[in-house]
């Protein structure tokens, strides 16, 4: 019995170790290659750890392209989209969960249906409208539609589901004291909704930071590129400079990995709690 348990535990460890190694290996290989010279990249047998670390690749990332701008663009767009999404979905989520007004549930269901509309379909008319408004090659199409489109709907949904479970006495008491809905929202509901908003922020930031399709269709000027688009442009050129590309990829990946490792339980619980609802 006990022997059987030990064998089965060992088998579990073996499978888990193999899968973990396979999915973590690309990160190791990315960093390792980013520190090689171009001639070392395809050496046989493979060089697991470079002989001399070529930190110069990381400097070249910033001298050979406006990489600091890619980074800054990605960052400020993700922060704006996240802040906006959190605020607007908290506001609407609160209204749907706690306030009474006609057609509330009908409107909510209508909004919910928006989550299944694919960006790939709406992109075509939006591109034309943005173009008529002169917003092509600006960041506006990367900020407004994600904030108010399906990302926003997802946020409203999460906040509403969360606030609906909060005991009703809390805002009834506030109402008795003559609190306006706005004050009740700001000083009672917003703090309570923090866990839901943390989930919303994580998903929104991650999606915005990694978004590829929208920048690809809207941006032409190098200086306006976000990280994913800047990186993808480096692969299409004939003859890829792998150490340079992978150094750039490393820099682009570090922030999201740091946030993930610091708040991993939030990420994972967020997925677990929302995935099935």
């Amino acid at each position, binding site marked *: 019995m006990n022997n059987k348990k030990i064998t089965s*535990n060992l088998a*579990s460890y073996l499978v*888990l*170790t193999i*899968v*973990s190694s396979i*999915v973590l290996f*690309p*990160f190791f*290989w*990315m960093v390792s*290659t980013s520190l090689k010279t171009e001639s070392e990249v*395809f050496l*046989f047998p*493979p060089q697991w750890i470079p002989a001399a670390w070529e930190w110069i690749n990381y400097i070249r990332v910033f001298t050979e392209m406006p990489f600091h701008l890619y980074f800054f663009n990605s960052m400020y767009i993700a922060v704006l989209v996240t802040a906006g999404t959190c605020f*607007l979905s908290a*506001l*609407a989520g*609160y*209204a749907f969960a706690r306030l*009474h*007004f006609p057609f509330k549930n009908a*409107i909510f269901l*209508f909004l919910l249906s928006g989550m*299944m509309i*694919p960006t*790939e*379909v*709406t*992109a*075509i*008319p939006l591109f034309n*409208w943005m173009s008529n408004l002169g917003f092509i090659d600006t960041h506006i199409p990367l900020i*407004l539609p994600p904030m*108010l*489109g399906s990302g926003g*709907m997802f946020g*409203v949904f999460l906040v509403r589901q969360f606030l609906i479970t909060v005991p009703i006495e809390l805002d009834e008491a506030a109402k008795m004291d003559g609190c*306006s*809905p*706005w004050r009740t929202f700001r000083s009672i509901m917003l703090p309570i909704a923090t866990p839901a908003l943390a989930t919303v922020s994580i998903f929104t930031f*991650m999606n915005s930071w990694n978004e*590829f399709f929208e920048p690809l269709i809207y941006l032409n000027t190098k200086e306006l590129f976000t990280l*994913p688009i800047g*990186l*993808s442009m480096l*692969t299409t050129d004939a003859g890829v400079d792998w150490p340079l590309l*992978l150094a750039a990829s490393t820099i*682009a*990946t570090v922030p*999201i*990995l740091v*946030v*993930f490792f610091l708040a*991993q339980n939030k990420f*994972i619980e967020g*997925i*677990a709690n929302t*995935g*099935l609802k």
Partner: protein
Amino acid sequence: MAGGKPAGLATLKSKEMWMGYLFILPIVAGYLIFLFGPIVYAFVMSFTNWSLFGNKAYIGLDNYIYAMRDDPVFWDTVVNTVYFSAGLVPLNIVLSLLLAMLLKRKIWGIGLFRTAIFTPVVVSLVVWGIVWKFIFSTDGGLVNLLIRTFGGTEIPWLFSETWTMPTVIVVSALKGVGMNMVIFLAALHDVPKDYYEASKIDGASRWETFKSITLPMITPAVFMVTIITVIGSLKVFGQIYVMTGGGPGTSTYVMVFYIFKQAFRSYEFGYASALAFILFSIILVLTLIQWKLRKRWVHYEQ
């Protein structure tokens, strides 16, 4: 006094109503402008020959007829997309369910493995695609170097009509498996413990327990996750763009890639809208099935 109180309540109520509408106004406006409006407009556009350099005229169902009957590329993209889904979905579901089963047990270091396997989920698809493209390079990519070490024949992973799609499928599965694993893990934790106790007393083997207790209990989760994964796989784009560019030949030319090319490289907005709408119809049907099943299951649970 008797008349004053109801009047006060009424003002309060109407104030609350207006505040409610005010609070949802931005998100409702956003929905109309960025989701509902465009989807309706795309539907209208799909009946036109709208392109950047031509006039716009209504041509009825011509776009749809052309796609279905005369456009060989369209069917290629459908076949490739189905190939991708048919490869990715079973691989992803089986692997993530297996991993969730292993991680469910309370043995040392489980948290570390969970974090490790989830890590690719948070990384950009573009970076993930770039690194794997490098690993699968034909001349000197790591996979081929290892094959050479063991004396095998090197394979042009991303330049062979046979190998490219399977390679992209595996790379995509590794990216997404952590997500589904975590959802399954949550579903597994919801299975009542006494069911397992009972089966232990009955002397059921592990496989029997899985087949007759675990699987039926988590069937709703499995169906939900499957449909979500199918929908995601139909929209595959980023990794194709980065790793293969649709090639070699048209072997990885998928639907969204074709829509992207038609709309934003050839500027054939009318035709691209029709293609996009065909994709949307498929997604819509899948979503409706999902909603229907969810309702039934929620009902069962109560």
